[in-house]
């Protein structure tokens, strides 16, 4: 009667353990089912093609623009809009304006109409804006790990002038209007208290839902675009009648859609592989050592036995 009882006990243990081992599978299926619809649609979104520079930064490829990048500099141009966007890296001490001018193939001689530093989620950016007559230039740069990374935008259309500043978010409300107005004042277009009532709309672009405010300043149409991004507002100011949404989107896509710097961490990869190898060597070595010692013991014992 003792035996019979242990018989079913064993089966119960084995059944229980099998159930336990099956649990991870169940749990993972459950996790897959549990994903909400929002996440599912996010997963189905087309993958972003990336330009990856030898200098360690990555930017999304602007698929509707002409890609003339080389292995160090990302370069996209749009002949219809007469606009170019460039991203490059250089030495820490280099002047961002010179670097941007060279990369863009433009000459920048004037003093910047506006420049400052902005703290964003991914570090401190220095921004400069130039008005070279027909050409209007926006340059962002930041220093990280001993290199200066520069993102520059130039627009050569004589009909319009487009600048893309970042504005520190100092107000509480959700609206981006204060940022747009601040940018208009900073760029020297008009003082905030002189601005007329704007027409406000919402524009959906791939880089996000932007708020747009259109002002009529002394007969000139000035359109401001704003996107709330936590500590910073992304702003674009277009002076003139042309539709600037495409440029706004392309430039900010570069910034928001993932300009980021991946430093060279190959050393860590090798370290990891070395540790893995070391652990295997220790295991194998200890097995081999114990085996050898056992062999030795065995021959000693056998000798003793035969004596």
């Amino acid at each position, binding site marked *: *009667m003792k035996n019979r*009882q*242990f018989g079913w006990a064993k089966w119960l*243990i084995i059944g*229980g353990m099998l159930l336990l081992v099956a649990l991870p599978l169940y749990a993972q299926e459950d996790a897959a089912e549990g994903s909400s619809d929002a996440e599912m649609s996010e997963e189905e979104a087309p993958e972003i093609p990336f330009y990856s520079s030898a200098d360690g930064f990555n930017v999304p490829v602007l698929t509707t623009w002409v890609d003339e990048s080389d292995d160090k500099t990302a370069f996209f141009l749009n002949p219809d809009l007469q606009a170019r966007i460039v991203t490059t890296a250089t030495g820490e001490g280099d002047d961002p304006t010179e670097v941007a001018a060279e990369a863009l193939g433009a000459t920048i001689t004037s003093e910047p109409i506006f420049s400052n530093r902005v703290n964003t989620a991914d570090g401190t950016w220095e921004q400069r804006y130039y008005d070279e007559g027909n050409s209007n230039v926006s340059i962002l740069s930041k220093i990280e790990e001993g290199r200066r990374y520069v993102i520059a935008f130039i627009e050569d259309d004589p009909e319009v002038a487009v600048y893309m500043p970042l504005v520190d978010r100092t107000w509480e409300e959700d609206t981006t209007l204060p940022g747009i107005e601040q940018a208009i004042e900073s760029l020297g277009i008009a003082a905030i208290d002189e601005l007329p009532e704007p027409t406000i709309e919402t524009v959906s672009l791939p880089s996000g839902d932007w708020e747009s405010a259109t002002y009529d300043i002394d007969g000139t149409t000035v359109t401001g675009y704003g996107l709330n991004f936590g500590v910073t507002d992304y702003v674009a100011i277009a002076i003139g009648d042309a539709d600037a949404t495409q440029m706004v989107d392309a430039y900010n896509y570069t910034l928001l859609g993932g300009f980021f710097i991946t430093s060279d961490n190959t050393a860590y990869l090798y370290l990891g592989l070395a540790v893995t190898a070391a652990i295997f060597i220790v295991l194998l070595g200890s097995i081999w050592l114990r085996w050898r010692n056992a062999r030795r013991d065995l021959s000693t014992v056998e000798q003793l036995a035969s004596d």
Partner: protein
Amino acid sequence: MKTGFWQVTFAILRKDMLAEIRSRELLSVMGLFALLSVLIFSFALEMDREARETAISGVIWVTVAFASIIGLNRSMSSEREQGSFDALLLAPVDRSALFLGKFLGNFVVVLLVGLILLPLGTLLYNITLITPWVLVILVLGIFGISTTGTLLAAMTAQTRARDALLSIAMLPIVLPVLLASVRATTSIISGDPTDLWISWPQILLVMDVIYMVLCFFTFGFIIEE
């Protein structure tokens, strides 16, 4: 021929309780340890109310875990001392009944220590710990600790470095129970809505059942020679 399962279980429980009432050996040592532990924690962690609220459940459960290790070591070695465990094995009884009897004894004693801890914590940390749900968690958590604890104490009592080995062997294995208990207690005393923490007692219940089944059936393998 075999003596009835429950008769054996309760005979052992009764014997252990009687011996404990006589000597108060376990309760005094564990109770004193619990008191010291709570005091030391409250001195060591000088905390404001909010910090106390998050720390108290950890303090309580760590104390319960270590107190139970002390108690389990004691309870098993008292069985070994006079060879009386052999006397249990000599009897025509189910091995699992022995386990259940020893387990119930340990469970009751550790639960008593836990019940002492609650008013103590309430007093020293100025947080109300005596609520029905905290009691439920206390019972469930100590149940889980006692099952594996009884099994592992029976095991380590037969090894060389018994006392040290019990804590090393037991703590990682009861960790899931401790984790769930701490989380549940923290949630309950900070007054979260029921649906935020109700899954913890459920998880505890499932773990208790799994541990109980495993320990119940493997105990026979631990004590035979």
